[in-house]
């Protein structure tokens, strides 16, 4: 009886010591977390997993000499065990099929609550997935408050999630499923790439420089009406647009494939020719046909850019159309800005005689330089 009471007293008083201190206010702020970063490109996975040394010490033991400190040597030696434990608690499926994961290098890093073991991860999925499920079971039956903080990069979005080992595996869409948002984002890319695509712009500019003029009896004269100028420009730009849309689609869909160096060189050549044609007019009618023919090559140039944007396999058409629309908008913006000036310039006498030829020669010179660089593969890795 007395023993029982004493046990109560002891328990009660021992409680006192722990009691106030049970408050979260006296502890390090948070329970255990691990940090898992994954990125998916095509069918390849890459990532990094940060697991607290204190957690590993508890589940598999790291302090080999039992001196109360965990040294790098002790962690390094346990790398196979750490990797095996971690990988046994993580299962990733791409579109329902299991992806193989391997652990690479072992490193360490410091987080706000202590030192962590860092595992480099790499892997492959059977196909390029559009959705990923992550079954996270680290410390599953060991720590009921442990969570995995996931950062997943795939396709065009970055997502974060808090993974609970007790919950069923969540699934993540790797591509932004909202068609409108996808469309807009690719359109934006299209606008951007025409703005930074100097060679495409220069080609257009070269074709448009004589827009305010017409060739008559071997001489340049101011165009009669703004309406006519407008029509002329519209035909050229539209032909260019249709042509590059066609080849862009073919290239992206894999129907056509031309070596990049050849494409880039021909694009540069097209600019040279268009510019020189202003100085030594060989083709004065049906410039829209010129625009169309060279537009086909320019389209292949865009395809290279688009391929670099990691297209969603399920939404290729949206991406294509979006990108194209973006390119159109960019083009039209440039043309709209330049057109009024060109109309006016047509009436300025020295435009036809001096400014326009001089400008064209300058364009030809720049493009000629590009042609040499690209044909001989001299240029450094560039933006275009």
């Amino acid at each position, binding site marked *: 009886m007395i023993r029982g009471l004493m046990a109560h007293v002891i328990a*009660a008083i021992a409680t006192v010591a722990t009691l*106030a201190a049970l408050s979260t206010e006296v502890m390090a702020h948070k329970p255990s977390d691990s940090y898992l970063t994954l990125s998916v490109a095509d069918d390849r996975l890459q990532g990094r997993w940060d697991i607290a040394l204190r957690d590993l010490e508890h589940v598999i033991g790291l302090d080999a000499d039992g001196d109360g400190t965990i040294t790098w040597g002790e962690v390094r030696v346990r790398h196979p065990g750490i990797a095996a434990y971690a990988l046994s608690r993580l299962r990733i499926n791409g579109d329902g099929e299991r992806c193989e994961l391997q652990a690479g290098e072992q490193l360490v890093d410091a987080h706000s609550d202590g030192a962590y073991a860092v595992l480099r991860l790499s892997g492959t999925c059977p196909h390029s997935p559009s959705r990923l499920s992550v079954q996270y079971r680290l410390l599953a039956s060991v720590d009921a408050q442990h969570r995995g903080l996931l950062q997943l990069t795939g396709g065009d*979005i970055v997502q974060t999630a808090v993974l609970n080992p007790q919950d069923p595996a969540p699934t993540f869409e790797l591509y932004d499923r909202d068609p409108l948002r996808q469309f807009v984002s690719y359109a934006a890319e299209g606008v951007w790439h025409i703005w930074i695509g100097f060679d495409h712009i220069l080609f257009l500019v070269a074709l448009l420089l004589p827009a305010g003029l017409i060739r008559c009896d071997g001489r340049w004269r101011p165009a009669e009406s703004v309406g006519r100028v407008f029509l002329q420009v519209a035909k050229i730009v539209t032909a260019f647009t249709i042509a590059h849309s066609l080849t862009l689609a073919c290239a992206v869909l894999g129907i056509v494939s031309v070596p990049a160096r050849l494409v880039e060189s021909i694009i540069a050549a097209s600019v040279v020719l268009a510019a020189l044609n202003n100085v030594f007019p060989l083709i004065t009618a049906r410039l829209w046909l010129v625009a169309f023919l060279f537009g086909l090559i320019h389209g292949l140039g865009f395809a290279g850019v688009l391929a670099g944007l990691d297209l969603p396999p399920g939404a290729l058409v949206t991406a294509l159309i979006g990108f194209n629309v973006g390119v159109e908008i960019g083009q039209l913006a440039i043309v709209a800005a330049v057109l009024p000036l060109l109309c006016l310039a047509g009436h300025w006498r020295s435009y036809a005689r001096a400014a326009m030829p001089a400008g064209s020669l300058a364009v030809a010179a720049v493009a000629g330089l590009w042609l040499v660089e690209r044909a001989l593969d001299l240029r450094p890795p560039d933006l275009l």
Partner: protein
Amino acid sequence: MGTHGPGRASLSAREVVLAATLAMSLGLSLPAVGEPFVPQDDGLVLERLPRSVIAADRELAALRKRHREAPDDLVAAVPLARKYITLAQAAADPRWMGYAQATLAPWWEARAAPVPVLTLRAMIHQNRHDFDPALDDLDAALAVDPRNGQAWLIRAMILRVQGRHDEALASCRRLFAVLPDPRPATACISDVAGLAGQARRSYQALAPLAGRAMERDAGQQDAGLAVWVLSVLGDLAARLGDAEAAERHYRRGLSIDRDHVPLLAAYADFLLDEGRPAAVRDVLIDRTRPDPLLLRLALAQRALGLASAADSIARLTERFAAARARGEIIHQREEARFTLHLLGDARDALRLAAENWQVQREPQDARILLEAALAAGVPARAAGVLRWLEKTGLEDQAIAALVERLERAGSS
């Protein structure tokens, strides 16, 4: 889940700096980069296990072995869970609470679990600020075992945190009946009554116990009681304005248990109020792994105008951010203090303090809300707290001064 637009994730410069300062402040000789790295030296110490954990190693191994062999056996699970909870407090690391919770997994969802499980479950809930589930578990335990002193004590303490003083006192009084030793009950009553308009009387009732507790052999159990008694006395003295007595009690408490985190935090707050930030630094040196102590150190460093304050602030920012990343929102009291006094953002501090006030109603919770309301220039937001203070009759000279300033600000 959150989604961002098309973009590439990368470490910002700030994260690099944070990680670097953290690494250095953890006392590790890691290079000043935020990226993971491969150390060159096998002997590099990456992590130091807390002394309490090392000391418990043998006992823990034995308990874990027994539990592994029979995970559904109550007799194996309860001692292990209890040990984990003790270590959580001793190591100031809530991951041990997670281990305890996992140990009790077979009974975690059961409403009518065995009494030992109920009390341990209540402790784990209380640690995560899930006060209502904790009280439910305690009530269930007491329905089966009304003479369970531990349950009455935990219940009293939770009700005290919630500001439900009358109910807390009722729980304290039960201890006279169920425990042969009247000291825990006396301490409990003084603790609670001292918050409810009886500060002087509580002090006088409790002060003799401090002497008597010390006279006994310093066994583990008596040490725990002595520290509790001394921290309550220190708190009462500080609130009543008797700085000399407060200092005496806090120091005696620390002489019994140098590492007692709540006591260190309370003493540091007292020293900060007394305008003695240098003393705070002396007391907290090498003891800033628990976040509440790091906060007090940062406040002291700021008061002293030290450059190291920026480092501490960066570390605290990172710790709060890490907690938020996993969805934790239970540290608003400290975050409010941090936001107001170290970041200078009164509006955000007020928001945090108000959220905190929904859950906790101790003097510190009232105080930070009043400070934030005053600093943000919206004294009206303090109205609820002012009414509560009047109703409960809390005696606290710092809070009284704040109330006066707020009333002047409100009427102007």
